[in-house]
């Protein structure tokens, strides 16, 4: 379509009004400030973590070096977040389906708000709820699990008597990331082209067959992206885990129902920070840096997946 005129583009020097120049400058400056702040997050964290990175192994809490200190925490972080996701994703997809396709139209929006309310509950409240309400409830089922399903490493036991276990932390995390995943997936479902849905229904598909033919394929990358988003949130969740697991300490184990649980990086920072000084403090910040890096990667992947779908949306 390009025409072949070789006339050089005439630079039209438009005098810019001072008001425009100032306003454009200020708003651009704000954007740049955000970039600077983010770079600052990285730089400051590295600076404050540096003494721990260079300190001799015996100075690090535990006396065996930074890697040995952080590794169990990292393990706890990953296993709690991943298992929370295993619970939350199928539930979130089901809830999104329920709200978009099964609930009566008139109350669908209200149901969406109700699920969003879950996201609004502060994590401190989930922490209190987890240790006071959920933990005791799980004691009996946990002992049943260890008796009957003890051969699965997750339920090896012995079961904790307080119920403040990894299992409870995982359930609380799942509840907390549920609304985030639901929101993104629901968005995708509502955008499923009417045309595809009607095409499926017109050839005699049941509701579920229509969903399988039209909605799920269309929403697939959103589901993946939303799961990554939820993973990022679960990895970084601090207080709820800290409160549920504060009474326990342990190394690397897949056992979810004993009182010996590996804490997570975030929870460990919250628990240790108020009393930490010197190298201990720098060590905590170093572990925070690790968490930052992981969530950064997870979120970047999430965004990339979600945005790739946007290119095919057609709506702009």
């Amino acid at each position, binding site marked *: 379509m390009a025409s072949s005129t070789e006339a050089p583009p005439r630079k039209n020097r438009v005098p810019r009004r001072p008001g425009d120049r100032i306003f*454009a400058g200020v708003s651009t400056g704000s*954007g740049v400030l*955000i970039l600077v702040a983010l770079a600052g*997050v990285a730089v400051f964290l590295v600076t404050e973590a540096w003494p721990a990175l260079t300190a001799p192994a015996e100075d690090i809490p535990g006396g065996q070096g930074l890697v040995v200190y952080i590794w169990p925490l990292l393990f706890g972080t990953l296993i709690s977040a991943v298992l929370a996701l295993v619970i939350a994703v199928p539930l979130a997809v089901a809830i999104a389906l329920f709200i978009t396709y099964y609930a009566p139209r008139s109350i669908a929006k209200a149901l969406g708000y109700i699920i969003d309310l879950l996201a609004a509950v502060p994590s401190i*409240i989930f922490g209190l709820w987890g240790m006071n309400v959920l933990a005791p409830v799980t004691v009996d089922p946990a002992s049943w699990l260890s008796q009957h399903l003890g051969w699965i490493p997750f339920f090896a036991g012995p079961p904790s008597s307080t119920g403040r276990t990894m299992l409870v932390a995982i359930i609380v995390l799942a509840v907390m990331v549920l609304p985030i995943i639901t929101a993104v997936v629901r968005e995708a479902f509502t955008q499923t082209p009417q045309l595809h849905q009607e095409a499926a229904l017109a050839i005699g598909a*049941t509701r579920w067959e229509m969903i399988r033919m039209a909605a799920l394929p269309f929403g697939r990358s959103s589901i993946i992206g939303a799961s990554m988003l939820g993973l990022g949130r679960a990895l970084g969740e601090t207080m709820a885990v800290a409160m549920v697991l504060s009474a326990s300490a342990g190394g690397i184990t897949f056992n979810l129902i004993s009182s010996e649980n590996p804490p997570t990086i975030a929870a460990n920072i*919250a628990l240790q920070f108020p009393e930490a000084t010197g190298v201990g403090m720098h060590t905590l910040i170093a572990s925070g840096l690790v968490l930052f890096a992981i969530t950064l990667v997870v979120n970047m992947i999430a965004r990339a997946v979600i945005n790739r779908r946007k290119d095919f949306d057609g709506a702009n």
Partner: protein
Amino acid sequence: MSTSLTTPERDPDLHTPLGGVSLTAGQLPRGAAPGTLVAAAVAGLLLWLLAGWAVVPCALLAAASYVVIVYTWSRAVEGPRKATDRFVTALVSGAFLLALLPLVSVIVTVVSRGAARFDAEFFTNSMLGVTGEGGGIYHAMMGTLIITGLATLISVPIGMLTAIYLVEYGRGKLAKAITFFVDVMTGIPSIVAGLFAYALFVMMFGPGVRMGLAGAVALSVLMIPTVVRSTEEMLKLVPNELREASYALAVPKWRTILKVVLPTALAGIATGVTLAIARVIGETAPLLVTAGLTDGDNFDPTDGRMTTLSVFSYYEYQSPGLFAEASFDRAWGAALVLMIIVMLLNLVARVISKLFAPKTR
């Protein structure tokens, strides 16, 4: 449709309607599914009340028996496709109900445990000199208000201006980079935001620093991306025709943005900002490491430790005083106050977006 005359008998299926399929054939009687549901629920209730089983297995059993009965029945009468559809319907509805459980449980618990301390002393006193019963959260409420207010003051201008840059000016690499990193920023764990603010203030004030301002900075890191996102969304909704109408009246661009674009998007932006406040006002972890805790009133964000509701609640529970029950009551009380604030903010946001949205039609 082309009718082939040469081979009429080869593919009769495609050229003649199937016929003979009754439109009402193979249906479960009306009320079959709800009836089964009621029966299953009653059976579950009986097991719980009379046989003395625990609640959870009873509920599970009732749900499972409903699913199994309806599925087999439907499969026999309506065929496998319909049966699968019914199965999925049950599954999906069950998932929704399951998700409501924790929400209801959380609300009931917080309200019933927190109401114990809803007295005048609780809202007017601080914790200065209190070791046993009594005491209040006045200092914590003020601290929450001050720190969140400061965070809002920092985040809203930066966030809105950035959104304006992205929508009205942004082109090329810089805009792409900012969009991307705002997205990334949305995912920063709150504890990391806290560590960042702490590290920043350590550079300025030395190790061990605690002050309200640092807490506000930490919250801003969490708040800015939300504000940017929601403002951006709202600005994009403003039709271009309005901008053009304004330009055609010889209004310069910056005035067009300030006087036409922003007012049109204002309700949406206010909603977004309110939700952003609701999101950070309950944060605990970043404030734990930046603002810390103090028993008395400190309303100066640049001078030492400052208590907020969430941190207060955490410490009351984590390290109770002489009478543990009194501490726990305070913790739940503070949590209830926090929850009410957050729910109110959410409600306000909905009301703003309902009432003040400009009528475009």
